[in-house]
């Protein structure tokens, strides 16, 4: 076999694998989308419909009427914004100090931040529940945002630190010689340069807190404070015949913001994640 034919063979093989795995990844999402376009009687049929025969947007409009859509979406959005704000502000200052200054306890702190994200969330569930109840923060958006901070802040610190490490220190020294204060350097030099990385971190945190389910399920008990994933889950609960069309429509709606976010910031997310996980 000549070199060129083996090369071609491997190309074919690689594309076959990528296409098959791609179908495996995308199929459930596509199927959910197709189901969301079907009327219930077209879902519950003897012969399965692959392409909906009477495509309709009824499920989407019914979903609007049945769930307190705006409340759920609004809660999720507000909690996400709060979580992202806390994580970015506190995460960046901590990450900057860890990246640029050498002080006693620095290594230990970095280790602690690394280990924290591995703690079993279930272990924190009960104590956090008790704390939130004592503070009167059950059923509150701020309460959930604080809870999400527990597992998202360490990730933010590690990700932002990775991006800051990549900014050459010479730039800062030059600005210092020109008379800028340390805080001035951060605001004028570092923040603009780190902005893409910080944005990627923000996207990742948004997705994680938008998707979060377990804590939101436990720490909210009324519709005013529930988040979108919980609302979607409870849509199913207690019904004998599952409203598949509705559920699929809800799934598709909740996925749209994530897909947009992910496609926008894909490259930097990938970079930040891999740096954070593999570098000690």
């Amino acid at each position, binding site marked *: 076999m000549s070199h060129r034919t083996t090369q071609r063979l491997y*190309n074919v*093989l690689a*594309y076959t*694998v*990528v296409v098959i*795995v*791609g179908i495996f*990844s*995308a199929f*459930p*999402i596509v*199927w959910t989308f197709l189901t969301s376009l079907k009327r219930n009687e077209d*879902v*519950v049929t003897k012969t399965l419909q*692959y392409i909906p025969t009477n495509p309709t947007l009824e499920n989407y409009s019914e979903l609007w009427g049945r769930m307190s859509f705006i409340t759920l979406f609004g809660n999720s959005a507000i909690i996400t914004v709060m979580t992202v704000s*806390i994580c970015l*502000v*506190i995460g960046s200052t*901590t990450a900057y*100090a*860890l990246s640029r200054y050498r*002080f006693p306890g620095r290594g230990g702190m970095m280790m*602690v*931040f690394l280990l*924290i994200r*591995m*703690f*079993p*969330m*279930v*272990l*924190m*569930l*009960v*104590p956090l529940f008790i*704390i939130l109840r004592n503070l009167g923060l059950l059923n509150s958006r701020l309460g959930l945002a604080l*809870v999400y901070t527990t597992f998202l802040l360490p990730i933010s610190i590690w990700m932002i630190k990775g991006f800051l490490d990549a900014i050459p220190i010479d730039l800062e020294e030059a600005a210092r010689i020109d008379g800028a*204060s*340390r*805080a*001035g350097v951060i605001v004028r030099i570092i923040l603009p340069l780190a902005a893409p990385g910080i944005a990627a971190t923000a996207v990742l945190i948004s997705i994680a807190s938008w*998707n979060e*389910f*377990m804590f939101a399920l436990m720490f909210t008990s009324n519709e005013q404070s529930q988040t979108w994933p*919980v609302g979607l*889950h409870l849509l199913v609960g207690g019904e004998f015949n*599952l409203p*598949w069309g509705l559920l*699929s429509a809800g*799934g598709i709606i*909740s996925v749209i913001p*994530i897909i947009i976010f*992910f496609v926008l910031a*894909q490259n930097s997310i*990938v970079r930040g*994640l891999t740096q954070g*996980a*593999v*570098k*000690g």
Partner: protein
Amino acid sequence: MSQLANADARNKLQSFLSLYLQKLNPFSLIGHISETKYWAYLMILPGLLLVSVVIFYPVVSGIWLSFHKYNLLRPKAGQPWVGLEQYQELINDPIFWISLKNTFIFGVGNVILPLMLGMIAALALNHINRGRALFRTMLLMPWFMPSVVAGHMWALLLDSRLGVVNDLLVRIGLLDSYHAWFADPNTTMIAVLMVGLWRGFPFFTLLLLAGMQSIPTELYEAASVDGANPWLKYRAITLPLLIPIILVSVTLRTIAVINSPDLFIILTGGGPGRTTHVLSFYAFNTAFSEFNFGYAATISTIMLLIVTIFIVIYMRVLRNPNQQRSAT
């Protein structure tokens, strides 16, 4: 004379005032503080405070709680100290042992299978040029699905009557008739592992692909000159250089899998029987269905011990400087 002195005093006052006002300006105030030696600590402080309030306190009080009886349904009983009583109870609890076994099965299966698929996908993605960005997006998508949506999606796909998986399998002749995946104890774990594979493999693809792209191409060129075939190149170059990344990602994934009850809450509820009853689900259920917080804390503390083993492995891998250097 006195006029001159007056002007002098006025000048002094003015300059003092302007300096004072400048210091009051929050921006220049921060600038001044940033020149002191406390600056680094000041920047660390918020992170440290938040971490100790929202992370350390809960963890420590969780462990503390495991030595107490605390049931929300019996508020009059309070929180009496019972020492190791609940740990003894745990050892004699058959459900605990079943859950431990299931955690082990699910933990291993839901790491090994995604690792294998993730490796294959990463190799293929690394090989292709055209359309790589598109396929990478497609392949990473499942990882970013909300667990609720993913769970219900697969519940629909695997539904016994309406599921497309059954239909496809019957059509290509792998199944004689529709199968009730989540009602049959023999296939429930398989179905959950399948969903876990779907959600889990992109994480490995992502990390392995990053690792592959950091391997210098000269190594492969040199191997080509020596006449090595792709399999040999994989065995001799790619795999050894990826070992640290594989170890790190396997550890992280194992920890995540052990800790998260999401899929079980949504898909199986631990059933049928107790075939998918894992520890995370057990702790979750004990706390929020039975409101037995003390016992739930005991189960969680045992889980922390299990996870700690994996954390130690992770640290070992990251600490090993030789492996670290060869990875990047």
